[in-house]
């Protein structure tokens, strides 16, 4: 098992390096918009765009051969020197560190809520298959799965912020993290994010639990005289938690990153999503790369955690095969 976990960790590192290398190649072969801009300005001011270009390249080390640039890039990346954000006039890592707490403020409660709700409702659905409660849960899941989150967010904002005035329309960064004002302004983001992420979790846990509701070993447990409640927790939920762990980390992470990107833009929360969006709009390449690498690395770590969780939870796993 130790060997297996070590192999997964190695793979995570290799994957990270590959991602970084690809990023380098993408950047290397893409025309630098800042350079084009500079040359354009130079040409308009009557200077020689060629010379400006050379100066720029020398300054940024772009006149070096590719392998030197590559090594330099990788060293910087690994040592967390992710470059300078031109538009924010601060190091990219500083900008990231400042933004992350705002993302976590609504993402963490939302992950907790959707995990509990998703698994709870899913188990209920599975054990009450084809009852009215199950149909209601299924309808709710389809609603959450299908509603475009950014659209739902603006509709909610207009209804509860604009028309009813229950929550503020503009996100206020000056309020204390633990304060009533902060709770009200995070209410809608948490709702939207939970709705989108709870749906797939619900469907998965229902399907997984259903596999086990009919399982022979559940009948064995019943024949032993185990109560329904204990059967649900000990004999259905516990084995279902193995595949669920996969979905929890794998799927949820994916959904949350995408959804939060749009949610932050809609609600004006200055987290990672907004940072990335601004960077794209303002053509701040270093910052764009930084804000995209964070979710990517988190996904890689998520996959790693999921693999390890699997080995801990499932005694049957065959290490040789993976």
């Amino acid at each position: 098992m130790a060997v297996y976990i070590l192999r997964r960790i190695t793979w995570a590192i290799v994957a990270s390096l590959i991602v970084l290398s690809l990023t380098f190649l993408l950047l290397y072969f893409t025309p630098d918009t800042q350079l084009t801009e500079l040359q354009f300005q130079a040409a308009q001011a009557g200077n020689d765009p060629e010379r400006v270009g050379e100066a720029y390249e020398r300054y940024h080390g772009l006149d070096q051969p590719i392998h030197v640039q590559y090594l330099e890039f990788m060293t910087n990346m690994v040592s967390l020197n992710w470059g300078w954000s031109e538009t924010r006039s601060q190091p990219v890592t500083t900008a990231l560190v400042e933004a992350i707490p705002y993302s976590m403020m609504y993402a963490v409660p939302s992950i907790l809520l959707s995990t509990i709700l998703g698994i709870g409702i899913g188990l209920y659905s599975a054990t009450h298959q084809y009852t009215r409660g199950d149909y209601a849960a299924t309808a709710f899941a389809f609603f959450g799965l299908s509603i475009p989150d950014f659209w739902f967010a603006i509709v909610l904002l207009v209804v509860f912020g604009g028309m009813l005035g229950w929550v503020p329309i503009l996100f206020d960064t000056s309020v204390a993290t633990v304060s009533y004002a902060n709770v009200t302004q995070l209410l809608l983001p948490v709702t939207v994010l939970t709705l989108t992420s709870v749906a797939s979790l619900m469907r998965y846990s229902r399907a997984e639990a259903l596999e086990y509701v009919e399982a022979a070993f559940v009948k064995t447990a019943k024949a032993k005289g185990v109560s329904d409640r204990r059967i649900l927790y000990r004999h259905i939920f516990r084995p279902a938690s193995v595949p669920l762990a996969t979905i929890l980390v794998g799927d949820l992470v994916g959904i949350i990153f995408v959804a939060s990107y749009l949610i932050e833009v809609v609600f004006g929360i200055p987290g990672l999503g907004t940072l990335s969006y601004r960077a794209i709009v303002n053509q701040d390449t270093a910052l764009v790369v930084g804000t995209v690498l964070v979710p990517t690395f988190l996904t890689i770590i998520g996959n790693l955690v999921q693999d390890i969780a699997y080995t801990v939870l499932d005694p049957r796993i065959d290490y040789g095969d993976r």
Partner: protein
Amino acid sequence: MTQDDPLLTVENLHTSFHTDDGTVNAVDGVDFTVRRGETVCLVGESGSGKTVACESITQLFKRPPGEITAGSIVFDGIELTNCSERELTDIRGARISHVFQNPQNALNPVYTIGWQLLEAIELHQDVSRAAARAEAVELLDRVGISEASDRLEAYPHELSGGMKQRVMIAMALACQPDLLIADEPTTALDVTIQAQILRLLKDLQAEYGIGILFVTHDLGVVAEIADRVVVLYAGKVMERGTVYDVFETPCHPYTRALLDCLPGRGSLGGIPGSLPDPMAPPAGCRFHDRCPDAVPDCSTGDQPAFESVVGEDHEVSCLHYRTAAEPTVLESGVEPRRPSERTDGGDTHD
């Protein structure tokens, strides 16, 4: 209590499943009894309602869609059909326990054998952890698992099919039940293991005096283990009697057709034809479209009434049992319960 005291009396049992396509009357008016210390075999082709009949006793089948629509099940003076789910939970495993057909999935894959045995013990007995553990080791030992205390830490996937079935039996015996229901416990196992398990069951029965309701579609197994036999077809009882009577003087054409399928007997490919549609069983005798002895009367009215025939409590539901009855089995050399070493005849898996 005497040996003849009925431990379990099932009368006029009806169990139905309500599905999208219609209602399946899987068990359609079945009577039988099990006494202490005896083994009663339910036999019949796959799909004839044996499993449903067994699982009706402590209501293990899925509800809904399943439902006991009529009948009475009296266990040691308790009417089980009137019991609440709580009362049933207290009886299951403690007084009536089950062993299922396929040991492959019958144990929870994420818990150790020990965990699952301890659960069975601690659910119904107020004992300390250490005492329960000791008991678990003893149980495993008793069902013939070597190095029992090490095996407690094993996960189900680390055991063979036969081992798993032994664990299942150990679990079923954990609380010294009065009745053991074994639903094709050997069908999924290979022939040598099958013989060992049958022997184990017989020994345990002799030791604890439990009543066994044993389900099989294999008359070879019946001959080895049964005291009395109940032949089921399409949810109804066709014939019942002592194993000796049923094998010596089988009165029902269906019973005789089953006996013909024993190895070394005439018919090889099983009984021609198939079970009737469970949603719309035919009128008259349910066996009539496959019966070689059928006459026009067989396809009208209800299932023929039971009539007593030679032997002790030997009954048959057939219009023409008398003309059909011939002592065919004696000629073949298949003798019930003698010699008891008989282990062949186990390969008519379905």
